[in-house]
């Protein structure tokens, strides 16, 4: 769907993007992750043709990015903005006509979305009369109204209350099911990791990590599990099967973090434990994207 190839963007004082390449597959939700100032917004601005790269190229469906692609892309910038004095219906109409829709079609779609998102009486309202969360909804509708094949959302859930965030999340998933490709850009990784199929980590203008969420997680798995049980357990028995990293006794149950030894599996652990204690649960400890990110960044920082 989208292929970013060796993009370099140089500003006067610093290099915002340094040889960044990534691939976004059609129909996937792609997470562009990284701390503030890493270069995410610079990259998005290049994809949305707001700015041009110094070198490298972006291909959309195999074609070099050009103005005919504007109607194929929907963009919700991090800094949300609308004309304050303009009526909402008219405003969305205006924005979607700039994307190439005609008035009749745009009006029909606005009505459809207004109904869907509980905004039926909003047409004549002015933006300045809306709450911030309501404005976000308006902006989301404006972003997807022209049915773009690729939707880029910068910090998609910031500013939404939990109810509306959920509403929007469902809309995103529904659109995704219909084939729309999404790019999320965020520094709050926990907010998107459950939605993303693939991610790329940007740090200090460089892409430091990318791949499917599953593959990355697998790579960062350390064979650690958390076991919760009651009863007395002699840690000496575990020798050869697992290593206890930490125990946390509580009144009802003890929780202990263990690392399973090479060649052993969770089944071996269970087999041993079942003979001695009452086991309540055994879960694999999966690193969060945030942890992976922090670890990775620490590693690259040390290297450099």
């Amino acid at each position, binding site marked *: 769907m989208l292929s970013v190839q060796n993009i370099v963007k140089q500003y*006067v004082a610093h290099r915002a993007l340094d040889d960044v390449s990534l691939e976004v597959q059609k129909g996937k939700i792609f997470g562009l992750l990284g701390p503030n100032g890493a270069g995410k917004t610079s990259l998005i601005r290049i994809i949305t043709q707001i*700015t041009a790269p110094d070198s490298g190229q972006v291909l959309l469906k195999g074609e070099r990015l050009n103005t005919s692609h504007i109607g194929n892309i929907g963009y919700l910038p991090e800094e949300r903005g609308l004309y304050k004095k303009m009526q909402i219906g008219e405003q969305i109409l205006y924005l979607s006509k700039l994307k190439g829709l005609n008035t009749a079609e745009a009006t029909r779609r606005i009505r459809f979305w207004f109904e869907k998102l509980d905004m039926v009486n909003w047409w004549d309202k002015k933006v300045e009369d809306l709450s911030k969360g309501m404005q976000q909804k308006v902006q989301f509708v404006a972003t997807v109204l022209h049915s773009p094949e690729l939707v880029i959302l910068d910090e998609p859930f910031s500013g939404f209350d939990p109810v509306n965030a959920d509403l929007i999340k469902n809309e995103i998933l529904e659109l995704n099911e219909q084939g729309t490709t999404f790019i999320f850009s965020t520094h709050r990784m926990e907010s998107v990791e459950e939605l993303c199929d693939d991610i790329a980590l940007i740090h200090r203008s460089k892409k430091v990590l990318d791949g499917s969420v599953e593959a990355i997680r697998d790579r960062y798995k350390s064979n650690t599990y958390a076991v919760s049980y009651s009863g007395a357990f002699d840690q000496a028995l575990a020798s050869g099967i697992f290593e206890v990293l930490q125990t946390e006794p509580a009144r009802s149950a003890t929780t202990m973090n263990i690392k399973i030894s090479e060649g052993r599996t969770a089944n071996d652990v269970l087999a041993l434990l079942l003979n001695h204690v009452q086991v309540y649960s055994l879960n694999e400890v999966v690193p969060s994207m945030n942890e992976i990110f922090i670890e990775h960044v620490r590693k690259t920082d040390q290297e450099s």
Partner: protein
Amino acid sequence: MSKISLIIRREYFSRVRKKSFIIMTFLTPVIIAFFYGLIFYFSYKEIKDSHDRIVVVNENTTLTEPLASDKNIQYTYSQEPLATLKKKIDKAGFDYILYLPDFDISAPRGIQLFGSKQAGLSLNNRVADDVEAQIRNYKLRQSGITQQQLDKLSSPVTIDTKKLGDAGKEEDSSAGASTIIAFVAGVLMFMFIMLYGVQVMRGVIEEKTNRIIEVMISSVKPFQLMMGKIIGIALVGLTQFMLWIVLTMAISTVAVGLFVGKDEAKKMAQTGVNTPGNALPGQDAAQKSPVEGIQKSLAHLEVGKILGVFVFFFLGGYLFYSSLYAAIGSAVDSETETQQFMMPVMMPLLFGYALSLSVVTNDPYGQVAFWLSMVPFTSPIAMVVRMPYGVPAWELALSMGILVLGFIGTVWFAARIYRVGILMYGKKASFREMIRWFTYRA
């Protein structure tokens, strides 16, 4: 529909529908008409009030011919003794008492003018002139000259100014009318360029602070957005200008009628402008009044041509300056930051304005006038100021051409700064920074 026309429509309609626009558009002509009417009213009243009523107590036995009244002074004769009149002066319908004792006409002495207020110098001179004229007439009659011969002695003089047009054709002209038109046009032009240029700047800042700019720029090119805004606001300006002209004319006509009444306005136009002092008895009653003259030369001023030139130079000057304003707007985060950039942009306009209304109106064909109306920074104002005095066709064409090149230049220059500036946040812009933006690759 093309994107730029969509932008133009939005910029236009969002402004034209604003309450402030509607109020300004309809109120301004009302205010202008109100003041216009007020001026008429007061000048009319002034004439009425300045009518000095003088009671003459004539004890002179030789000067029996009554002093002639006119619109400025009204002489009435009274048989009552001076002492009684003096007591009545505040209550009775007169302002002054002129006392003419029985003096020797070869050496008039003891003439007195009484009033509850001090008679002004002009009134004093005027009365003295009248009495002198009467004495002179008396003496002339004594030496055998008839009244008819006396009347023939004075021939009132008025000068018609004629401008020789192309091929020596005579045209009625009036320095007064040209100057009035020049001033009005100059002030309007200055006001319009400032007003609408600043609107462009505000619009750009609004988009930037609202952060809608990023959404817009992902749909349209920065140049389209900038030009759409500039053209949309230009159309707002033209709409307002046209409405003002139509409304001002309509309302003024009504207002003058209301304030003064038709007959009185007419009367005033005829009487209000005769200069005092030379209104001798028997003077040609059908003397052409200057107001009539101005009206006549207005008709010859080719108002259509002046309007057309005004609109052209408004558009040219507006495009020239508003693109610079757009560049300023793009470089700042809020309106308070615009000050340092506004000055250099405003200076040439102010300079042109000041010189146009002083030097150019005094010498509309001089060197200064010529150069001011050529340089695109000042030509929009200087040229409309020169227009009523007449400008050779080649100069007009040259100035227009330079202005067109000028605004193409500023639009190009501004667009390069604009495309970078609109995406810059939180950076304090400086001229050096802006020059650097100018050289950026898009």
